[in-house]
């Protein structure tokens, strides 16, 4: 019984442990440059938990991260390393802006914006899928290139086609009929959070409770067995990319129709950049499971929100949190962090004895 509970909790413990390693690594680097780590962490965490505003902002920031985290998580379940959420999200955001140029009734406009975002995200993942299936090109390379192409294509579209005639620094705003209502006054939290959580649950259902999801997971775990069982591997890869692209596209659309006060995308993409890359870390900490991803997204968003307060009150540059996040992921790469020492020592012992021997 106890061992069963332990086996279930093990991934959670590992994630928490990696989080602690990350915070320790961050503290060391802060101390190296003469910043006060304890004051910094104090500011960081009190900002998130200390006020309704901090809490609301954290949930608002977690919203897109849940979805971009899902993109990566679905990919891993299907045997892919899809790091293209960034570009797919850009495309979703632009599609949502484009839909706002057309007049529509209230409810329908929201639905159309969301569908347009998901469609754009899914379409932008297709070249990577096609290259993977037809040419065997690793998706890490193709999706990264597509991210950069999406960034520059997006900047062109936002400036030259969807630009706000009054304010050159941003695109036109989402039409009032397409905007999601707020959930917590005084913060940027809107019903976008609910949409993201519902999508996460839908993904859980599709990937764990349907035949398609079963096939995706078999291909992810053991492509040989999948082939032997008559599963169409190419179809499964394609489905994995499409589901992931839909999640990222939805993240982009929600950043437009559910993100006050501007409900727009900026010409420098400042409100959307890195949300896709952060999703990778979110998925890894959330163990590539939809429920884990939701909690990991809140954790990541908390770090990002707290970072601003940390910069103001403790004077530590807010980019510090990216260093911490990097250390967390590196720590997660090592399996069974808890058994690190016992795993490392036999190899080292062998080595030392050989060096001594020779």
């Amino acid at each position, binding site marked *: 019984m106890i061992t069963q509970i332990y086996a279930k909790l093990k991934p959670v413990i590992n994630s928490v442990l990696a989080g602690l390693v990350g915070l320790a690594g961050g503290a060391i680097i802060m101390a190296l440059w003469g910043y006060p780590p304890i004051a910094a962490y104090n500011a960081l965490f009190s900002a998130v938990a200390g006020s309704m505003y901090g809490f609301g902002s954290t949930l608002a920031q977690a919203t897109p991260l849940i979805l971009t985290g899902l993109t990566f998580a679905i990919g891993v379940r299907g045997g892919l390393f899809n790091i293209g959420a960034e570009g797919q999200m850009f495309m979703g955001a632009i599609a949502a802006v484009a839909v706002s140029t057309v007049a529509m009734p209230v409810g329908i406009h929201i639905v159309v914006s969301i569908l347009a975002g998901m469609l754009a995200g899914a379409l932008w993942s297709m070249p990577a899928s096609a290259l993977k299936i037809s*040419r*065997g090109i690793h998706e890490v390379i193709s999706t990264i290139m597509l991210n950069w192409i999406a960034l520059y294509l997006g900047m062109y579209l936002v400036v030259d086609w969807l630009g706000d005639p009054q304010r050159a620094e941003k695109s036109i705003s989402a039409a009032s009929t397409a905007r999601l209502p707020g959930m917590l006054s005084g913060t940027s939290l809107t019903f976008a959070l609910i949409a993201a959580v519902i999508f996460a649950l839908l993904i859980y259902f599709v990937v764990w409770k349907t035949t398609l999801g079963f096939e995706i997971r078999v291909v992810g775990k053991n492509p040989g067995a999948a082939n032997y069982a008559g599963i169409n591997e190419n179809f499964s890869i394609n489905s994995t990319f499409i589901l992931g692209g839909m999640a990222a596209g939805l993240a982009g659309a929600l950043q437009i129709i559910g993100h006050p006060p501007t409900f727009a995308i900026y010409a420098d993409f400042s409100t959307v950049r890195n949300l896709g890359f952060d999703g990778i870390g979110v998925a890894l900490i959330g163990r590539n499971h939809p429920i884990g991803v939701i909690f990991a997204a809140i954790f990541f968003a908390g770090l990002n929100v707290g970072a601003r307060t940390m910069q103001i009150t403790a004077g530590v540059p807010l*980019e510090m949190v990216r260093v*911490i996040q990097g250390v967390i992921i590196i720590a*997660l790469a090592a399996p069974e962090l808890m058994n690190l020492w016992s795993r*490392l020592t036999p190899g080292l012992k062998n080595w030392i004895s050989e060096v001594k021997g020779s």
Partner: protein
Amino acid sequence: MDILTSFLKILIISLNAMVPITLAAVGEIIGERSGVIDIGLEGILLISAFVGTIGAQSTGSPYVGLVVGIVVGLLIGVIHGIISVYLKGDQVISGVGINLFGGGLMAFGLIAVWSTPGHHVVPSSVRMPKIATPFGGISYIMIITLLIVAGVYYILNRTKLGLKINISGEHPRAADVAGVNVERVRFFSTVVGAGLAGFGGAFMAVDWFGVLTKDLAAGRGFIALATVVFSKLNPLLALLGGFIFGFFDSLGVWVSSAPVIKQVIPWQFILMTPYVVTLLAVAGAIGRARFPDKLGEPYKRE
């Protein structure tokens, strides 16, 4: 005449732009041949550029900066090697972490060390001297890169050490039976590979650009990964690939100084070219790249 001058100018920028991509790609080839994949090249480029610049400025010597950059690369290789080879961890996740860490460290360091959120200009006193030509300076490191490419090609294809590296990636069990220490070969291949990427990072800081920004690497680490695919793990073809990508990279730099072209083609499309070309080159490379059989899989002795 004017066209010829422009062409020669682009050619020289391309030769410099070739260096970081080629060094990172050739390093990656060594690691991948031994069976270890390292997608953290982007992060290594950034970390080495950052720490290398600190080394150069605190000693007043660009050579120290280069050495520091290489050492930092080697150290990251040690971390990645321990996780991938000895802990049997997930190599791709470790690489993602290195990239995230590198991006954060550069952004953090620009503010922490030089109090600038934007860009830090490396003083010309700690920049590498260049071979002067009428069309722009060529870096000495470009020459060194050619030698490294030739050396790595020779080692991988003509020596016993190269045989050990290749068999560790292709058939680790057979290597083990034949008395090769697979873990050690993989570990050192990873470390040396990361060191070459570190060399490329330091080159960007104290030689080529001389400016540090958050986006200094600008996807070059990933373009290097694409170059590895394009080259089918052959260092000589990686040099060619590095030159092609460097050419399109520098085309953007050159066009941005030619306002006539900017009026015809939006600047966003010019900046997009290296990435589009990379995608097309990888897609159009003749025949599939064949990777070592056990690439990315930890070797566990029975």
